[in-house]
């Protein structure tokens, strides 16, 4: 029968205890602790720094959002001015000319075309102001001259040399309605898509033509730029910066 030995592994022959160090030098605990800390730090960092879904753009003091900053009538006119601006620019790229208000009647172009939309949205008086150095577009579609609206010659004089084409709408009669500017900055770059359109509103529907249509001047005279809340911004809101 085998005799049980009282000697533990590590004891030497004299019974003294001999400590055997692990080959790793006891770094396991420290390594485990550091790994746990690293994971916690990473998760915390991701939570704090993860990309946020962007919300609707915040308008500056001189801007207004089309989606929730405009009344129903202003919103409708703004919605019509956007494609009209695009078509006007395309036409200019192709022909070098600008769509006159008479031409707008012939091609039923809202918001200038005098139909039920025009009628229910305040019967705005539109004027075309051509770039400085050109004569103003003489024929307003009105038979009569609106007392509140400036004469086209005065307007043209005020915009001499600015190089912008402006469709100016005023004297709308709907409650809470604004005055409007579709400003097309004409870039003489000789390439397509060089023109850019911006839309401005003034809380006074009878606001006089501002004369100078540079942003700083418009802001000084109480005009506010309309920021369209468009599909691009909505996609950004929903998905971050995906397509």
């Amino acid at each position, binding site marked *: 029968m085998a005799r049980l030995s009282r000697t533990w592994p590590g004891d030497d022959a004299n019974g003294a205890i001999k400590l055997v160090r692990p080959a790793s030098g006891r770094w396991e605990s420290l390594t485990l602790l550091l790994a746990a800390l690293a994971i916690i730090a990473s998760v915390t960092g991701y939570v704090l720094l993860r990309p946020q879904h962007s919300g609707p753009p915040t308008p500056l003091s001189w801007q207004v959002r089309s989606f929730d900053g405009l009344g129903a009538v202003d919103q409708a006119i703004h919605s019509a001015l956007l494609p009209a601006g695009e078509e006007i620019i395309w036409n200019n790229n192709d022909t070098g000319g600008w769509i006159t208000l008479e031409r707008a009647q012939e091609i039923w172009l809202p918001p200038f075309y005098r139909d039920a939309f025009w*009628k229910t949205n305040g019967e705005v008086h539109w004027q075309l102001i051509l770039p400085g150095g050109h004569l103003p577009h003489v024929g307003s579609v009105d038979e009569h001259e609106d007392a509140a609206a400036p004469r086209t010659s005065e307007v043209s004089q005020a915009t001499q040399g600015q190089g912008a084409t402006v469709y100016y709408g005023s004297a709308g009669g709907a409650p809470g309605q604004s005055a409007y500017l579709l400003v097309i900055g004409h870039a003489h770059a000789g390439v397509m898509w060089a023109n850019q359109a911006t839309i401005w509103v003034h809380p006074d529907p009878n606001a006089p033509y501002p004369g100078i249509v540079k942003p700083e001047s418009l802001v000084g005279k109480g005009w506010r730029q309309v920021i*369209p809340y468009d599909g691009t911004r909505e996609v950004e809101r*929903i998905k971050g910066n995906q397509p």
Partner: protein
Amino acid sequence: MSVSTKHRTLWRRCLALLVLIPAIALAGPTAPLGKKLKIGVTLHPYYSFVANIVGDRAEVVALIPAQANPHNYQPQPDDITRAMTLDALVVNGIGHDEWAFQIVKAAGRGATLPIIQANASVALIPIGGDQGGAKVVNPHTFVSTTAAIQQVFEITRRLGELDPANAAAYRQNALAYAARIRALRAGFMTRFATLDLSSFRCATTHAGYDYMMQEFGLFVSAVIEPRHGVAPTARQLAHTIDAIKKANVRVLFAEKNFSLDLAKPIEAATGVKVFALSHITGTAYSADEFEVAMRENLETLAEAVEFTQR
């Protein structure tokens, strides 16, 4: 060989070249050198838009079957196969065709397929009626004329970037198409001009028609569905019926293919007259589908307004 013989040989060769060059040119391929783009679309109106923009200069491919309901569509294997072959995809992108992104991802085209957001430059408006005080984006930009034209222009601009050789032709086609849509609208505007629109109040079962209403200066007082494609609870329905009665609404627009059943209890409870509008979702894709459906919609809208004038 004498000098004169050398000259004669040279002249003969030059003459032969002069004859051969036009012959070679004429014998070359007559088909256009650039390949036709294959442009995918997610919704019926986008098929019409793109077909009218590109004419025969590109191929239009519907991503999903014509009869499918885009509100609750589940992607199918064939859709993925189609997506693999596309050169670009036109989407609504703001809540009407989210399934398209699943299809594109499944086809492995997430990084390579150019996505054309038709609404990229459309000024969005909120859903009409009371949405619990919140302003919720209405994604039905295609049930309209002005917003439809804006989308046609946006698609045209992007296609021109992808296919510069045909950009000018696309633009001309887009302008002609826009003129046709405006002519359609103008015809009904003449009819509306004699009517008093100021007192017109309506409700809709589906929040699909705010853009069209906006173009005629009309507004929606109540929407039955609490969210896009979601049926109301009994409590929500009771609340909406209350709102309809208070706003003195006389007309309810239901969706032709989806929500006529929802309109019946409201008609019974409030006495409104129900008219059906189209969401422009038919059984076959075609170039003229948008114009046909919008003509019907505008006809229905005119009848509804005329009804309230009696």
